[in-house]
């Protein structure tokens, strides 16, 4: 991780509120919360310089458990509220917490426009592929055919892949983790906060009550090494229990190979470049689904682009300087007026 040399004077406990955490025992949100507290401590931004803003849903309860400025708002609107907050008070570090329903269904419009504008906020998208708070309806990330209370015969629609939606909206940062991958989650969150612009961290997270085990086939200890790959910028794309497997280019596609077999050597394995402006490879990596190719976790894309809130500030500085009005009255008097004696 970058900036490790800067010692934070804060510990995770400084970011914990005194509220008792009310998620179900075994819920993946507990792990995400702990990782967030740790990431905040690593970053060293003081609690009073940090805001956590959420919508509605199980995961959106998160602000109550952080000893920062917090706002638990209304369903789907966290990205819009966080945008206004950041533009108004750019000194604050802003975290937005949403679930797959809150962020991608009712809040889908705000999600894509926040990414398009590249507002400097960090979006944690907790994806459990289900509506938990309303007790078990399918969500926009539930797979086709998924049986739930609102789809008793299976859904007849395809899901979003959050990364694909984010790239379509021209996201400058996308990372993914699993709720059980504490180190990776923490690393992704810290990187998201350091990224200037809108960052999305998707955490594949378990709902122990309504969709228990939905991610187990990739997150179980026995499968995880083979079905996921931890991408780190500048490092070879290796995975497997002993990092014996790697990703290679095969025409325009990616291919998983075993190093030393079929003539593939370590030199053939791709090196991850999260900073590449072209998102072609990032898309391919993000769309790997665990079947033929492992699910990518870690920071997949992290590129620089103009930041909305900074551009607003810069424009205000420029225009104010060129006009030079010191008050409303001065501005009005510079226009068409007449005097009545």
């Amino acid at each position, binding site marked *: 991780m970058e900036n490790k040399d800067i010692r934070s004077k804060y510990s995770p406990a400084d970011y914990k*509120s005194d*509220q008792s955490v009310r998620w179900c025992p075994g819920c993946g949100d507990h792990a995400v919360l702990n990782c967030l507290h740790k990431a905040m401590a690593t970053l060293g931004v*003081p*609690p*009073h*310089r940090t*805001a956590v*803003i959420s919508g*509605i849903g199980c995961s959106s309860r998160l*602000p*109550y458990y*952080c*000893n*920062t*400025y*917090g*706002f*638990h*708002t*209304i369903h789907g*609107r966290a990205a*819009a*509220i*966080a*945008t*206004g*907050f*950041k*533009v*108004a*008070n750019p*000194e*604050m570090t802003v975290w937005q917490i949403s679930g797959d329903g809150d962020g991608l269904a009712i809040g889908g*419009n*705000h999600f894509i*426009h926040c990414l398009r504008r590249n507002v400097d906020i960090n979006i944690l998208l907790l994806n459990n592929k289900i509506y938990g708070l309303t007790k078990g309806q399918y969500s926009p990330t539930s797979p086709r055919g998924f049986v739930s209370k609102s789809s008793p015969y299976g859904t007849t629609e395809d899901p979003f892949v959050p990364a694909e939606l984010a790239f379509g909206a021209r996201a400058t940062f996308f990372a993914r983790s699993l709720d059980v991958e504490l180190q990776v989650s923490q690393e992704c969150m810290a990187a998201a906060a350091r990224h200037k612009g809108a960052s999305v961290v998707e955490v594949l997270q378990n709902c122990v009550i309504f969709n228990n085990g939905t991610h187990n086939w990739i997150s179980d200890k026995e499968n995880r090494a083979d079905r996921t790959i931890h991408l780190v910028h500048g490092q070879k794309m290796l995975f497997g229990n002993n990092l014996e497997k790697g990703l290679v280019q095969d025409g325009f596609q990616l291919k998983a190979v075993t190093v030393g077999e079929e003539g593939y050597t370590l030199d053939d394995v791709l090196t991850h470049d999260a900073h590449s402006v072209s998102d072609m490879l990032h898309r391919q990596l993000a769309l790997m689904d665990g079947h033929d190719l492992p699910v990518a976790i870690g920071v997949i894309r992290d590129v620089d682009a103009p930041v909305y809130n900074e551009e*607003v500030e810069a*424009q*205000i500085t420029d*225009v*104010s300087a*060129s*006009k030079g*009005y010191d*008050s*409303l*009255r001065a*501005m*009005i*008097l510079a*226009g*068409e*007026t*007449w*005097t*009545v*004696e």
Partner: protein
Amino acid sequence: MTDNTSVKTLDKVVVRFSGDSGDGMQLAGNIFTNVSAGVGNQVSTFPDYPAEIRAPQGSLSGVSGFQVSVGREVYTPGDQCDVLVAMNAAALKQNHRFLRHGGVIILDIDSCKESDLKKALFTTDNPVEELGIRHAQVLEVPVTTMTKAALAESGLDLKSMMKCRNIFALGLVCWLFDRPLESALRMLRNKFGRKPAIYDANAKVLRAGYDYGHNIHAGVSTCRIENDKITPGVYTDINGNTATAWGLIMASEKSGRPLFLGSYPITPATDILHELAKRRDLGVKAVQMEDEIAGVCSAIGASFAGNLAVTSTSGPGLALKSEGIGLAVIAELPLVVIDVMRGGPSTGLPTKTEQTDLMQALYGRNGESPVAVVAPISPTDCFDMAFEASRIALEHMTPVILLSDAFIGNGSSAWRIPEANEYPEIHPPLLPAERADNNWHPYERNADTLVRYWAIPGTEGATHRLGGLEKDSKTGAISTDPVNHENMVRIRREKIARIANDIPAQEVHYDTPEADTLLLGWGGTYGHLRTAAAELNAEGTPIAFTQMRYINPMPANMGEILKRYKRVIVAELNTGMFADYLQMQFPDVHIERINKIQGQPFLVSEVKNSIKEIMK
């Protein structure tokens, strides 16, 4: 013919410019307005333009109008016009009914050819006769020919020449009312200064129109308009939407809170977004969001962050913002919501005026969700009431809905530019530094006003969490306790009610001992209702008059005022929303109603007739 050349002295005159929506009627009208204001007249305007940006040329649906009243005691753009400018046959057909008995029509006869008449659905070749216009002086002016002739040596192409026709008509009207061409030329220079050829052409055509008026002098009775005695000072022309935007900026200066606008384009409110977007030069952060909901939500985020936060919209947008406003109610955050009302329901009449969002503003949210509601009464009052809405929002930590409307939002008046010290300082209840001790709870309140403190994010020792879930009245933690909820509902209601202690008393005009009837209006109908009351009193029918600007809560002396009258006539541009609201709060008051729901302002004459009918 000599009697026609005499100069009449009128208190005020009304001119209506009408033509195809591409004919530049708004520009001609605006320049005439500014020129008149510049010579010291009071002015009041009413742009009446079609919903379509460009309906088929020459068609009835494509007619655009701009009416202006200039002179003394001008409160409205006038019911009927003294002079009607009609740039084509369709404009004549659509607008002749606005002309007063004996008024003047200036008609471009070049635009009344066979094809023009056909497009305007005339069946004969004489539009004036076909429309039954008898008691008018019709000036058939070859505007198109004269404009082309004036520009014969300009080197302009035909299309560019045709764009100057409106200025020919303007020149003629300037001559009619003895307006100095210099100030009209100055405005043209401001508009076309970067295109000298276009400016030269317009200047030439303006003079040609003026000279034409002079040459046909014998045919019209000209009028000179008296100057009004007005407060000395520096003036500018301002429309209601601009005044609203500027009032918000003044409130930002007076409160020290930066101004944030989250908005989405919607007729007829968009000019507020336009103006505040320009005002990055004053540090205003106006952002165009992806939808109405994002508009209000970004403002709520900015409010939580410590700004004077505003969202601007019209009726359909207010409906979309309802849930967001409820969040600001329960989080007790300051928020100004501007609704420039238009005709409804649904998309309704987007460019027309109405007062039909009153109930939506008062009650259009889930749960018990009270907010303050105020309504400006004129274009210039938009400045004062936008300031007031901001003051109430910031000092009482509540959403405030400002009910403007299309009529005053688009209408303009001369406005004396105020000094900053004419407005009070605004004191938001910022958390005192010594209270930022990590032991503060966000729902601790001032015992008198019930207002909670505002801790600006970034303040050390004051971190806290807000949210849409009900909170414990003391600790601010989530609470589902039944008694606590009832307590919080009552506190939020009482907090709004106590704003009545912080607003001016209601004033009554024409409050003579003989008046046993009170005419009561609210918001943008002030000009017409005040004129009706003034005329009735002058004609020997005593009637008191009051116009409401503070809707919720109402001023504390309302009950005492209403008690004094045998009956209260509530006149409004809906089916009786304010009358119902008033009756609910004051069940013993005898209320009569005057209602109009046509997308148009009242006419003074119809209000007077209705009042006489009621008082019979």
